[in-house]
């Protein structure tokens, strides 16, 4: 699915990356714990989170996250926007709560980047 479609499903506003909406995404991860994002999120996935600080962008950069969706109508800090622009990571915000946002994406075919935790070193 194109990022543009994700934007439409979530009725989201693009904060950074208007020119990157053609990016293809298939998987996602949702969490507010950055250590869990580091442990489980996969490259090329969407990250849905309620955190708005620059560390979210840094964590996403380390993991090659495709795009970040802020949920619950969160607005990012200005440093966060600046860093996302610098690192070319699309940043969107939606008013849907995390549960609704992931449910809507799942219904349209986006899957979790892993289904269950288990293999601690699952880096596929």
């Amino acid at each position: 699915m194109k990022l543009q479609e994700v934007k439409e499903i979530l009725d989201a506003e693009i904060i950074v990356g208007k020119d990157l909406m053609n990016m293809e995404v298939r998987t996602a991860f949702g969490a507010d714990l950055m250590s869990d994002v580091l442990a489980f999120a996969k490259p090329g996935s969407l990250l849905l989170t309620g955190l708005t600080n620059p560390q979210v962008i840094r964590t996403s950069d380390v993991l090659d996250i495709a795009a970040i969706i802020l949920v619950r109508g969160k607005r990012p800090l200005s440093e966060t926007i600046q860093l996302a622009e610098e690192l070319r990571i699309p940043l969107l915000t939606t008013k849907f709560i995390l549960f609704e946002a992931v449910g809507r994406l799942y219904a349209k075919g986006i899957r979790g980047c892993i289904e269950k935790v288990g293999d601690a070193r699952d880096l596929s």
Partner: protein
Amino acid sequence: MHVTFHEKIIEHIYPVKGGFENAGRVSGQVKALLAKRNLPKDIIRRVAIVTLEAEMNICSYARRGTITVRVMPHFITIEAVDEGQGIKDIEQAMIEGYSTATDQIRSLGFGAGLGLSNIKKFSDTFRIISEVGKGTRLKMLIHIPKEFHPPKT
């Protein structure tokens, strides 16, 4: 940043300041450094994850520290040394979920007591030494798969 070139070893020493403003900066630089070399993506990812967690620890708990990354022909080491409060009970600190983080650290999405276990999980060997009131030293090693070893000369 201080860089030393030996014949087959590249060593990068990154200073890390305490405080959150810059947390994550070093791991981004490390990732960019490794991306220039012929290394598998998952190895670069593991080094970057381990570095980010170690960096968050220094920023959260220490006045300052350094992160040293050495790229050897067959493995990569990441060493994080800080001048900080130290860890009283390492065994307890290694338990997933155990944390002494402040609300400020938690508000950034870190400090959930997962950092050290993530570091252990993503490195092949992990060593931790700490002295209360002085600081903590972490050393991690990640093997480079055989296919990516430099050719023997």
